[in-house]
């Protein structure tokens, strides 16, 4: 059946609205990041586009507006330290998550035993649990463990998001891999665990990569635990760093703020879009608790 003209028009109309809705805030930040200071609040593209903002956030500069107002004095003037910290935390969280979750997910995918229902409900419970309730007790516990204000403490806290999510996703992946392959390996003399390591894991690589990237992004985007657990400047991660650009409710240095947000936002966005074809509903559920 050929579609009517009115239907075509309707689709075009809604597509334009959709694009406008998605792109306006993003356009504004991209444009501001490439604008010199005097053009920061213009609506159009900058007439003299510049990379100064990016140079400034990585190398630092003198006499920017933020330093004049004193806003930036309280934090590291460049993005380098918080960026490295965020990368370290996300990387550490991903490694631990993948090791712990892959074996647990394999267990849930393959074994039948008493108590399994409780285990899987427990993990689902952890998966949907709102993290703000843990803010206070985790701070106290990290203090007791001597991990308050340390990146390793933050990594540990991030596992509360990433492990349940990863187990839940990987379980589905493992269930999709035929069990007969492992059985064949076991007939040839592999132990159960060896057959898991040598047969199932290599076959699950696309799933492992996807889950690792999602875990990375979850840790990267966390502001709840980093805000309560980190207390000194050389430990700050990106969400804390970016918070200092707002001084008394006013944006102090639009160009550098926009450039910082672009760097912080683009890396996970690229990772997400890169793996989009693997993305199914289940994979995205809970990727960001928001």
């Amino acid at each position, binding site marked *: 059946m050929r579609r009517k003209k009115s239907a075509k028009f309707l*689709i075009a109309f*809604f*597509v334009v609205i*959709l694009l406008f809705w*998605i*792109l306006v*805030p*993003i356009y*504004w*930040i991209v444009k501001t990041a490439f604008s010199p200071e005097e053009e920061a*609040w213009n*609506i159009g593209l900058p007439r003299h586009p510049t990379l100064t903002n990016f140079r400034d956030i990585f190398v630092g500069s003198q006499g920017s507006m933020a330093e004049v107002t004193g806003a930036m004095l309280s934090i590291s003037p460049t993005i380098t330290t918080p960026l490295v910290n965020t990368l370290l935390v996300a990387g550490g969280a991903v490694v631990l998550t993948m090791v712990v*979750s892959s*074996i*647990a997910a*394999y267990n849930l995918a393959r*074994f039948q*035993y008493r108590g399994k229902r409780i285990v899987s*409900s427990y*993990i689902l419970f952890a998966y*949907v*649990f*709102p*993290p*703000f*309730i*843990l*803010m*206070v007790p*985790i701070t106290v*516990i990290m203090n007791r463990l001597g991990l308050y204000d340390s990146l390793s403490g933050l990594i*540990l*806290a991030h*596992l*509360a998001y990433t*492990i349940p999510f990863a*187990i839940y996703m990987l379980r589905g992946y493992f269930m999709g891999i035929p069990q007969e392959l492992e059985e064949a390996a076991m007939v040839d003399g592999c132990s*159960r665990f060896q057959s898991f390591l040598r047969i199932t894991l290599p076959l699950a690589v696309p799933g492992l990569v996807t889950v690792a990237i999602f875990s990375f*992004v979850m840790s*990267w*985007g966390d*502001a709840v635990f980093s805000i*309560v657990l980190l207390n000194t400047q050389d430990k700050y991660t*990106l*969400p804390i760093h*970016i918070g200092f650009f707002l001084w008394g409710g006013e*944006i102090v240095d639009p160009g550098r*703020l*926009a450039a910082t*947000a672009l760097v*912080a936002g683009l890396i*996970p*966005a690229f990772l*997400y879009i890169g793996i*989009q074809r693997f993305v199914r*509903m289940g994979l*995205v559920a809970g990727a*960001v*608790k*928001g």
Partner: protein
Amino acid sequence: MTIICPPGYPGGQITKKERRKLKSKTLGVWAYVLPALLVLGLILIIPLIYTFWMSLQHMPIGKPPTFVGMRNFSRIFRDPIFYKSLKNTFIYAFPAVAIKAIIGLGVAVLLNQEFRGRGILRGLAILPYALQPFVVSVLFWFVYDYRGIGNILLRVVGLKPIHWLGVQYAMPSLILVNVWHGWPFFYLGFLAGLQSIPGELYESAEIDGASSWQRFFSITLPLLKDVFLIVCGLSLMWTMGDFVIPKMMTGGGPADATLTIPMATYKIAFLLGLNYPLASAYAVTILPIFAVLIYFTVRHLE
């Protein structure tokens, strides 16, 4: 007496040796999940129990904690700030979830049609969700600045510029940020749901003379019900528990206009006098609401 045999032990009774073997096998099975259970115990279960314990204590700085029973709770129930933050939590979460669901459904239906450029749009539609909540907050700092795009758009449609994060508009502005960030979650859920509806249903309905609206209401919506319940349950829970957007946008202000329960918990615990027990009592008081939502959602997810 019947003995139920595990698979691999066909017929007959299990000998002692076999039973021992089976037992060690079960132990081996637990070894796979043990690390995960331990880590989650340390960062989820122990903190949760600790929250309950703290909510019953008085913990002055530098002195040992003392048991005070329900005093923190009776203080909460007399505290107008608590009722205000509870109300704000609902005012924030319910409209946000409803609007996200409507936009998500609309976009899912739109991007389920066939037209050129659909693939690119499907990628773009995830973008707001792929950006971190703290980055989204920064985007909206620019939108809500007095010189920002928000006021420019108001002028275009002939309205006066406003202070977006002033007392009057702070809450709707916050909801808008949450909606902009969160609707693709609904879109992804609904799109997956739509794609699982067999096309023949629509064809036969069309042959029977159903209009496209009729088809939408009597085929599409009923078949999306399960997805709808799960997605709304998850989103309601996470929106009610959202800390990052209120913290980054307004910090609960101005004049507590956007003080939600997570924000209030944070303020009491970390900004005003480090009152951990009172903050824990806030969390415990709202926990039943989450427990119901968690139970409901987990049951559907399983």
